């Protein structure tokens, strides 16, 4: 599991250099209710917790003051329990739900100030979305479902069917082009959804809990599939999920939301290694720490009596990968980055994590 994630992360980071963020969100608010505008404008109301706001104004703040940036090629995961506002957030990003206030800049273009036509062009060519319940058109065959986006943007028939055929191959559905969605299993239907999102060759893919409706085995397949696709086509992805293990598996960075607010944003090992509060700590409690934490989280400062001729490892090596090396070495392992000694990892530190995670799991 860890290996492809590493590759993906590497691929993503390589793209970072030299270009700005694809999506940049600032002070985004979505308030439902009749006095929504009022809430977004008033500093006092904005500061209220969700429940008090509801009691005072009758409005629900689904997304409160969220801001983040997504780099090109990155897989950005938004995680939270149901009602945390994560689905509303992703819909605000594409304006399927109109945000109350804030700023969303997509490739330099302020999405909130797009008119209907510009927005349509963006949706047709720049970003697309995969939905929890697939949202396929039951009266269309798989290939026509996939070609739908191209059809409405006026692509000639032969061309769009060719392209649809290609993406169907890409998601591994060859041979089912002429089936109807209700003849396919859930996992296959979501592959159609994925192919449809890819057909327009968008820059960014949004996933709204795409695998929540699938059973665990299929879900794992689909996660691997997304990792593979990310590796092959290298799209920027914004992924919504309520499943921490999914978030850790796919995400370069993870944003944890609660009651519409951001709780913590960081890489998987940051969340597990340094949870911002009890909410996050609760979330990450059952995570197999050895699979997520890297050496930099468990190393201890070097002591004078440490022998310095042991093996060297990078601070970004995951504990599980390092376990064998550390236990096999008769001296503590040095954690070295760019020639600087950052700390030491001995059997004790490794065993604390591995044993801890086993008892935790």
């Amino acid at each position: 599991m860890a290996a492809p994630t590493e590759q993906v992360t590497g691929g993503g980071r390589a793209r970072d250099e030299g270009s700005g963020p694809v999506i940049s969100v600032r002070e985004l608010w979505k308030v439902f209710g009749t006095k929504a505008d009022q809430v977004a404008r008033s500093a006092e109301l904005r500061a209220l917790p969700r429940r008090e706001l509801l009691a005072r104004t009758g409005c629900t703040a689904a997304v409160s003051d969220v801001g983040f940036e997504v780099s090109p090629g990155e897989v950005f995961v938004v995680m939270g329990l149901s009602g945390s506002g994560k689905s509303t957030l992703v819909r605000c990003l594409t304006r399927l739900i109109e945000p109350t206030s804030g700023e969303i800049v997509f490739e330099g273009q302020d999405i909130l100030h797009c008119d209907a036509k510009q927005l349509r062009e963006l949706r047709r060519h720049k970003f697309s979305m995969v939905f929890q319940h697939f949202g396929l058109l039951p009266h269309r065959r798989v290939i026509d479902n996939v070609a739908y986006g191209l059809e409405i943007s006026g692509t000639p028939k032969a061309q769009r069917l060719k392209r649809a055929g290609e993406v169907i191959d890409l998601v591994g559905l060859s041979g089912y082009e002429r089936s109807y969605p209700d003849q396919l299993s859930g996992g296959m239907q979501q592959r159609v959804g994925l192919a449809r999102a890819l057909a327009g060759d968008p820059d960014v893919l949004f996933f709204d809990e795409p695998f929540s409706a699938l059973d665990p085995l299929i879900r794992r397949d689909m996660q691997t599939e997304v990792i593979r696709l990310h590796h092959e086509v290298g799209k920027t992805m914004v992924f919504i999920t309520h499943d921490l293990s999914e978030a850790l598996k796919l995400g370069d960075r993870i944003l944890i939301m609660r009651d519409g607010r951001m709780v913590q944003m960081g890489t998987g090992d940051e969340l597990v290694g340094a949870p911002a509060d009890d909410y996050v700590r609760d979330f990450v409690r059952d995570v197999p720490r050895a699979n997520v934490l890297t050496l930099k989280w468990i190393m201890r400062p070097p002591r004078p009596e440490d022998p310095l001729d042991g093996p060297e490892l990078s601070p970004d090596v995951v504990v599980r990968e390092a376990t064998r090396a550390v236990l096999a070495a008769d001296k503590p392992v040095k954690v070295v980055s760019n020639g600087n000694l950052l700390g030491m990892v001995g059997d004790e530190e490794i065993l604390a994590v591995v044993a801890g995670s086993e008892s935790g799991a």
Partner: protein
Amino acid sequence: MATVAPLRAVLIRPARGMVVAAVLVGWLVLWLILRGINTLPLGAAQLTDLHRSLNQLNDAIGASRDTNPIFLYFFNVIRLVVGEFTGVIQAIIAQPAFGGPIPLIGWLGAVALFTWISYAVANAKVALLTAAGLIVVGLQGLWQESMDTLALTLSAVIIALLFSIPLGIWAGLSDRVNRIITPVLDFMQTMPTFVYLAPLTLFFLIGPASATIATLIYAAPPAVRLTAHGIRSVPHDTREAGESLGSTTGQTLTKILLPSAKRTIVLGINQTIMAALSMVTIAALIDAPGLGKTVVKALQTLDVGTAFNAGLAIVVLAIVLDRVTTAASARAEAVRRHGPARELFLEKRGGKQTETIARMELGDSSRIKLKIAANGAAQSGAKDGI
């Protein structure tokens, strides 16, 4: 907040008892004042002021029917257009006049035509039923009357659908429109049919035109409701997915909502046809031609045999119409479901491409043929009308 809630409860709870008491007191007071006034049964030829004023209104309308601009440019125009349209349909299928294509081929020819239409939109079984039903009606000697009934039904249904499907789509898309038209539709459906025949004759006189109008008022609500319902029940994800891919409003409607709602809409059309048939029969009371008239006349002379016979013909028509439309909607579904299964089977035998194309051509050609038939009918009808 904490103080408001109990306060409100205090305000509401006694209010209910107070209202009941107030109603009782008001009722007693009114009884004391109005006791014995305007509550006695009327004598045989006695009229109240209300009766008189309504009759005066009727007389006034009768006198000014051809001068009052509201009638000249609104009600009379509607009556004329609906009447002409009904006349055209009647001329096509009911009246054996020269000039129309079907009367020339006689009633068996008309039976053949209807049978073929049933086969084209539904299936062979239903086509057989249509043929049998129409022949029974013909052999009963009620061909002319049956076709008048059918003509009125069809014209009312066509006009009703012309309005109700767009209205249903609108109501399906807009909550506000839905809220506004729901009570109107409730009113149209719950009002006993006898009640609005009188006001209709006030505005549209008696005859096929006002019978058609009465029928379409009664028959339109199911189509509106079911169209709106069909559009509303398209899964939110499906709609959102379409939008997220950049559909325009029109594309969302024609490529996502309407195809998904098709089955429900056809069901609505079926309901409208059935409602229209029952109302056309009742509209015999305002001089609608057809089987209803036969029944009414026969009942007036206690001619039970004739009334029963005509009633049977109505039932046969109802069964035929219902079966044909139901089978037509089921077929749309069946093609969708079983078509591809057959393809998968054929794929194994390596004949996928040609077979698929053949199937598509078959489906398309039958649709086109139907369209040609409809066009032909409309054209000949237009000729008749002119």
